[in-house]
């Protein structure tokens, strides 16, 4: 909205005193309440960082927990979170981006398009715990169990594992990716497409050569937001393979004869930052001794999600700037 904030009624001084004070009181009240909300929010964050900052150092970030979680660090939890996010992106990004391309570029305003849009919106509103129910019931007990039975792999995928946690989170963040990608595709000026068509490009050539490259940082924004969302979720992964304590990183080695290539083993259990906070607060042997670790872990998780969000904001800002330049030229 244009500069409506500069509009002031110059006549306010001429108003009767009661109206004038009422005016000041009302505006003041809004300001005070806003300040109060921000103050409380910052106090909460401040408390967490104040209590947790002392413990965070290189060792804390890399080491495994020792001595009943009272010592050591959260290295495996960070590794597990990063691995799950990596797998989640692999699952969610192709489907999400391609869906968005269909909705924005191909679909005419018909029933199919409206149904897809409605589904995306609905998927975004489903409570995260329901994804957990679905992940356990469908992915683990239905797909995984049957896969093991058919392939004769014993008990490989029919149990809670990183693979299913990432697949479930991928379903959860799909709407985030689709909505951001649509926004990014939509922002590419019409004239650009027209120019490509004018040069004789087909629809697909236009999308591949003009639309997608231009919306790249917009799409990236969506992916970063999705990761930030996924890393912060706890409820859906509670029963999908989060472990209290794993001595080993969920890594396996692929034997290639000459040398072995390490890779993340998606059939393993994993430690997860957000779950780690949950169990530290409720199940560690001595909550008083683990208190610094609890606050430290919380501070790390907040920092992680906030940094991701800030990166997304910067990317979005850049994306808009680039498009503005394109438009002006």
């Amino acid at each position: 909205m244009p500069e409506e904030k500069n509009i002031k009624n110059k006549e306010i001084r001429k108003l009767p005193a009661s109206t004038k004070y009422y005016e000041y009181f009302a505006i003041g009240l809004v300001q005070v309440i806003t300040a109060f909300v921000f103050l409380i929010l910052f106090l909460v964050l401040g408390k967490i960082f104040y209590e947790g900052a002392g413990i965070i150092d290189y060792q804390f970030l890399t080491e495994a927990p020792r001595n009943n979680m009272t010592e050591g660090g959260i290295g495996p939890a960070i590794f597990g979170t990063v691995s799950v996010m990596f797998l989640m992106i692999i699952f969610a990004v192709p489907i999400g981006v391609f869906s968005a391309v269909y909705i924005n570029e191909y679909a005419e305003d018909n029933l199919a398009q409206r149904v897809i849009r409605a589904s995306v919106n609905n998927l975004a509103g489903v409570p995260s715990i329901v994804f957990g129910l679905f992940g356990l019931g469908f992915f683990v007990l239905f797909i995984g169990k049957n896969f093991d039975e058919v392939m004769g792999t014993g008990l490989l995928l029919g149990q809670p594992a990183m693979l299913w946690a990432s697949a479930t989170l991928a379903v959860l963040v799909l709407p985030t990716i689709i909505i951001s990608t649509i926004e990014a595709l939509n922002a590419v000026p019409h004239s650009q497409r027209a120019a490509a068509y004018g040069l004789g490009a087909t629809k697909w050539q236009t999308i591949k050569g003009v639309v997608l490259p231009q919306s790249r940082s917009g799409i990236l924004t969506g992916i970063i937001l999705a990761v930030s969302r996924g890393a912060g979720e706890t409820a859906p992964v509670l029963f999908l393979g989060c472990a209290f304590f794993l001595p080993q990183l969920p890594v396996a080695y692929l034997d290639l004869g000459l040398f072995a290539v390490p890779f993340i083993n998606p059939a393993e259990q994993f430690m997860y930052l957000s779950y780690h906070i949950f169990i530290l607060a409720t199940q560690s042997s001595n909550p008083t001794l683990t208190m610094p670790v609890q606050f430290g872990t919380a501070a790390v998780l907040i920092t992680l999600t906030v940094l991701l969000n800030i990166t997304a904001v910067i990317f979005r800002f850049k994306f808009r700037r680039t498009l503005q330049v394109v438009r002006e030229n």
Partner: protein
Amino acid sequence: MFILKSKLVFLSIILLFAASCKNPQLHDKTVITIRGSDTMVNLSQKWAEVYMKKNPKVSIQITGGGSGTGIAALLNGTAMLANISRELKDGEIEHARELNVEPMKFRVALDGIALIVNPSNPIDSLTLIQIRKIFSGELNNWMELGGEDRRIVLYGRENSSGTYEYFRQTVLGTANGNQQLDFATSTQVLQGTAALGEAVSHDRSGIGYGGVGYFANRKDLKILSIKKDNNALPISPIESDNNLNYEAIYNGDYSLSRFLYCYTNGTPSGEIKEFLDFILSEEGQKIVAEMEYIPLLDYQNQL
């Protein structure tokens, strides 16, 4: 460019799948998966830590979630060892046999269940009947027990917890007409013994229960003595110097004690057997004592 990238991504997915099918285990390491009781999760972790230091070829994974989770995992085959803080019910063993699982039990430690209140609470001991009345909601003011005029606030565990089940069967038991009593619906349910201790330590009218090992060294909690009946002597699971009252817990003078079990599917062999042997060895039982549970070794010697 964009397409090339997504092709690479697809390739790597296929590779990951192929690799995970081909090589499901860690590189030349034996994995032991343990699931079950939250009461035992810290103990198991300590056992695992020490055992893995001695046997670097073994990797032990531990997950809590409650005894019920452990049983489910043993039946589904997702765990090789189930930590269970109570004996399996007959129905559960039958159900297991239907699924071709033969649960074998191993006593690995002894545990006393302590009743805890806030240190400011003047009450020091309760009879079993009083405890039953408190937790089934029949008594709801501390004044009726000789305390201050406050509503009794009950703290309990999740219904998947072995401690919950044990406490329900032993203390609440069956009342008139073979009706199993349930906890009062107002019982607050906490996700772990640690959270429970934390809550009671801050709540002047609270009472809760849990493994005595969790609470023995905490000054901000009071552990109650228990009387078998009105005329019996009150017996505390700890001694005055905050050490565990081993004797009373062994010989059953303290009413709320139980064995902790590890269940395996069939007779254990290989690495699992070695790990169980380690648990029952002197070294393993020393860890039990360190973790404030009651080691079996002395107990067996005493017999």
